[in-house]
């Protein structure tokens, strides 16, 4: 039983005259982890950022085609972008915590979204931090400046912060690219746990990581979706020659 959560039709993305994506069509399933792999500059991040309309912050962005979440086109004129980003959370490549206390970082989104009850916020923080496997490390020093944490902790805190908006979909842009193996393992474990509740799309450079954590894998090359299949199938028996070449390290 697979439920289509995100459906992308013929999506092309341009930044000024540069085409980043070329007629991508893909169906992403709910409560699964979908990995997006491909060489640098193949449009992975651009694709990810169209799903919460983050690309619009870049001057010169244009797109063709449509992106549907639960059968609603998120690029319709009547879509509230701000609320869309509450539904589609995002974790960025490098940690971008605010230079405030750990607590303020975590309470930022709930406060902005109008939760006033201190108890609810505290519970939410504990819940998301436990999910993000960081609660034990920070629970005694919530008032410490978040930037004093180690890089791995910061990234997990970013994940926890992204979860405080209680999204449906979580986009992760190379969440472990700057981390050591231990932190990476923690984040991978975490992604595995999170899919029970969320639909997760992970962009990664690391093919072993994609193979370990994802249910489905999409291979992008030069702005095009080359192959999209179950991870086990794509990694063991790719149907496309380019995918096979990339996986075996012949290019990229």
């Amino acid at each position, binding site marked *: 039983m697979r439920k289509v959560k995100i459906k992308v039709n013929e999506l092309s993305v341009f930044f000024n005259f540069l085409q980043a994506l070329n007629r991508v069509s893909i169906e992403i399933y709910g409560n699964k982890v979908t990995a997006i792999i491909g060489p640098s500059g193949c449009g992975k991040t651009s694709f990810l950022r169209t799903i919460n309309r983050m690309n619009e912050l870049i001057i010169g962005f244009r797109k063709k085609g449509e992106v549907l979440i639960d059968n609603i086109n998120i690029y319709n004129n009547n879509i509230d972008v*701000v609320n869309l980003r509450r539904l589609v959370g995002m974790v960025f490549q490098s940690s971008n*915590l*605010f230079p405030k206390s750990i607590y303020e970082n975590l309470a930022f*989104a709930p406060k902005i979204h109008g939760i006033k009850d201190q108890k609810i916020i505290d519970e939410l923080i504990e819940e998301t931090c436990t999910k993000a496997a960081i609660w034990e490390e920070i629970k005694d020093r919530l008032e410490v*400046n978040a930037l004093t944490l180690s890089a791995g902790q910061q990234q997990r805190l970013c994940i926890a912060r992204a979860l405080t*908006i209680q999204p449906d979909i979580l986009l992760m842009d190379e969440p472990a690219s700057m981390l050591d193996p231990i932190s990476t393992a923690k984040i991978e474990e975490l992604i595995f746990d999170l899919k029970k509740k969320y639909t997760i799309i992970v962009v990664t450079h690391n093919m072993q990581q994609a193979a370990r954590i994802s249910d489905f894998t999409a291979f992008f090359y030069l702005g095009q979706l080359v192959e999209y299949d179950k991870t086990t199938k794509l990694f063991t028996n790719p149907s496309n020659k380019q995918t096979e070449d990339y996986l075996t390290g012949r290019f990229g």
Partner: protein
Amino acid sequence: MKMTDIDIKSLIKNRKKTDLQTMISMFLIKFFTYSIVAVLFLILGKIVYEGSAVINRQFLTSAPQNNMTEGGIGPAIFGTLVVVFLMILFAVPVGIFAAIYMSEYAKDNVFNRILRVTVNNLAGVPSIVFGLFGLGFFVLFIGRGYDSIFGAGLFLGKPAMLWASATLAILVLPTIIVSSIEALRAVPRNQRIASLGLGASKWQTIKNVVLPQARPGILTGVILSISRGAGETAPLLFLGCAFFLPQLPVGYLDLGLFSIPMINPAEQFMYLSYHIFILATQSTNPTITMPIQYGTTMVLISIVILLNLTAVIFRYKFRQTMNEIKRV
């Protein structure tokens, strides 16, 4: 194969030559730098030496007496503080909101570029021109206009504290705007992205993320412009600066049963920098007033230096936060 004609010997020769050049230029650079500092310390030293002899509590609080040759500078300190306070009230909100608009909202088109250039150029206009503008626009146009429309007699249509501070506000506005824009732009993009990614709206992002991080930078600009405003003299010549006022510009607000003392911004005022000017040039005997001039100068300079020091502290804090964010 030889790449150049330089051999070891010629290198030695050149080195000597460069050494002499370096020595001369280094000497000149140091000489000029130290002379500037020396001049500054000479001036400051003289002022502090002469000024501290006259400054005491009575000098700071009492009014000038005996045809300005005796007494203190209380009213001038009072006037300066009130005018600067009103100036902050006018200039800071306008300046910060203008900066937010120009750095966060304004699209990069011809109109907004002209706007930016205009603001930058405004900072270079001589202050006396602002004074004349204040006289023409605030006093004659707005003040007289108000008086004739509401039949208020001669209430606002004369040079007064209100118009002096409004004019000073316009004078320092470009500095506030430019430095605030810079502080806002210094907030890294990833901080805005983080906030927007958490479903914050643009205004929430500005209010909760960008402004708090830019605050020390903005404050630096604000304080520096305040210290500029506090030391300004020329525009005030037209705007109600008084040679001597027997009373503080305080009126009594009648509330029926009782009345409360209120600073009356529609009154004339005394001002520290102007006080120095008149004591040195307009008073009956500039030589006798010398000690008072030194005392006044020291008070004015102390205020300005104190403000600048605060600005330095804020700037230091601002840089620290920015470095913290960028280090990640």
